[in-house]
């Protein structure tokens, strides 16, 4: 009987082994099921997932590990998350973020969420990168950021006890290159979805806005009021950005030419990407150069501080009088509305923290 049982277990074991190994050969990494909150599904397109970089459980997990690992920097001290921290809506709260050599640039670290809906696929404040994968290439070698070389970064990853196997699980090869690194990081970044703010729940008829918040929404949507909606979305576009580029009248003279540096077109001078208004409470300071420390300062700019130049956007329709000239009550209401775009569950989401 013992012998028979042993044979049976042996056959069963082979069967399981055969089934498992066959399955692993044929299926590869496990497709990642992206959970899209209700407010981002209300008459809104699905996100952009490149055909050559589908989301997988293994790829997202690898991207998350890489995002929080300082191994990509030249001296092993700086990770993506140093300047893109979950608690700050995946930016940081400094005007300019120092790289590994303590040198700062002239641009504020951009928040990271809902990037998968950037159909224009232009990233950075000046749109110089096409796609999240291309965007992730630059910080590694930028001398004022991680100041590394990709050859060195890949060498570090290849020599690591875990990464070769993790790349094998995610991409079917343990030979690591920059393309796979950026694909993994981009996969993780596409999972960073924020769609659970008070306003999102209002859109889903789960809660009501306060009178001040509702008045603020009207200020936001009124062309003769704040006129924010032309660039910053509306209740039907819950990204709260048009992902386009505008000169919003910050300066009379430009030390940073923004989009013009990329296109070479002088009519693009001083144009920068419209940031999302989601999670503003976490993402200070504001503007491409982090010049405004508070939301109040931002509102004051649009109210009275707009400068007129050749490239100031015509949508700054009140630029002739310095801005939209909001009353204190309108500013207070508008701020109350903007704070309804705060998604606290996004910054505490366990899936978005360091592994």
């Amino acid at each position, binding site marked *: 009987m013992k012998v028979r049982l042993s044979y049976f277990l042996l056959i069963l074991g082979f069967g399981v082994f055969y089934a498992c190994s066959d399955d692993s050969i044929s299926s590869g990494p496990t497709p990642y099921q992206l959970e899209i909150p209700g407010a981002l599904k209300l*008459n809104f397109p699905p996100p952009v997932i490149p055909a050559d970089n589908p989301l997988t459980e293994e790829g997202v997990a690898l991207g998350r590990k890489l995002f929080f690992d300082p191994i990509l920097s030249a001296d092993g001290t700086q990770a993506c998350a140093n300047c893109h921290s979950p608690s700050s809506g995946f930016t940081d709260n400094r005007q300019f973020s120092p790289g590994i050599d303590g040198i700062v640039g002239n641009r504020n670290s951009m928040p990271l969420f809902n990037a998968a809906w950037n159909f224009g696929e232009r990233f950075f404040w000046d749109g110089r990168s096409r796609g999240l994968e291309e965007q992730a290439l630059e910080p590694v070698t930028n001398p004022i950021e991680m100041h590394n070389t990709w050859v060195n970064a890949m060498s570090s990853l290849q020599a690591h006890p875990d990464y070769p196997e993790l790349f094998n699980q995610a991409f079917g090869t343990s030979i690591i290159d920059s393309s796979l690194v950026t694909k993994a990081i981009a996969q993780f970044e596409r999972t960073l979805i924020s769609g659970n703010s008070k306003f999102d729940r209002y859109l889903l008829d789960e809660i009501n806005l306060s009178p001040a918040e509702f008045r603020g929404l009207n200020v936001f949507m009124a062309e003769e009021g704040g006129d924010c909606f032309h660039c910053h979305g509306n209740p039907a576009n819950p990204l709260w950005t048009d992902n386009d580029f505008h000169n919003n009248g910050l300066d009379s003279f430009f030390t940073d030419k923004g989009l013009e540096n990329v296109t070479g077109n002088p009519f693009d001078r001083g144009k920068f990407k419209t940031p999302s208004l989601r999670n503003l409470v976490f993402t200070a300071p504001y503007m491409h150069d982090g010049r405004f420390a508070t939301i109040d300062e931002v509102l004051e700019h649009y109210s009275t501080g707009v400068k007129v130049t050749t490239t100031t956007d015509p949508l700054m329709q009140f630029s002739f009088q310095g801005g939209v000239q909001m009353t204190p009550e309108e500013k207070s209401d508008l701020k109350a509305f903007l704070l309804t775009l705060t998604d606290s569950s996004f910054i505490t989401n366990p899936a978005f923290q360091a592994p």
Partner: protein
Amino acid sequence: MKSLNLLRLALLMLVFGVFFTACDEDMVEDANTKVTFNFTHNFDGANVTANEFNLFDFINEKGDTLSLTKLRYLVSEIRLYKANGDSVLFPFYNLVDVTNSTGLSLTILDVPQDAYTGISFVFGFDSINNISDAYADLNLASWNWPEMLGGGYHFMQMEGKFLEQGEEKPYAYHHGTARVSEGVFEQNYFTADLSGVTLNKANANIEIKMNIAEWYKNPNTWDFSTYSTMLMPNYNAQILMHENGKSVFSLGTVDQTN
């Protein structure tokens, strides 16, 4: 090219089905026509593309010098007419974006082969289709028209600058539903009727020309000193746009092949 809401589409297919089954017995089963509409733009004959944007190259009827920085508009409900007055409706909409050179061409396949003598389309959405928040791609394009102004969608966004005593001033010529008073709105779309065409071959390329200058002159001479910004809630401006828009479109080149 995007479809209008599903119910309309289903009804339309039902109507088409009944029509073709019941009436068109001599129609060859697979004899369909491909029609491509090419949207081109000019300012009193001078070609306008994104390459001409930002330059103060245009002078309107009143004599104001102006530039363009953005031009996008919506067309929907394209209809082909037969000589006997019957028509075939295509329940699509198309956002023409001159700034980004998208939507400049719209191809409709499976057009029932027949002899057509006219074309029309709705500029914007008619009152049935102008449904707030209903179209995902237009929401992504932030094409929405505020609820306080009647909701639905923009029909056109034309922006740029004009010169006033040598000084650059912004204009935002945004067209959509007109607000008569608080809570009272007036539909403001119009239908562009383009007759004088004969379509009777398998493939047709049709140029739809927008003369931008017409927005400023016919029948109302546009005055930037009165109407340049904050025009969305301005009832008078919206009605003037509606009236001037009717002469903006014309047929251009029509190429046909079998």
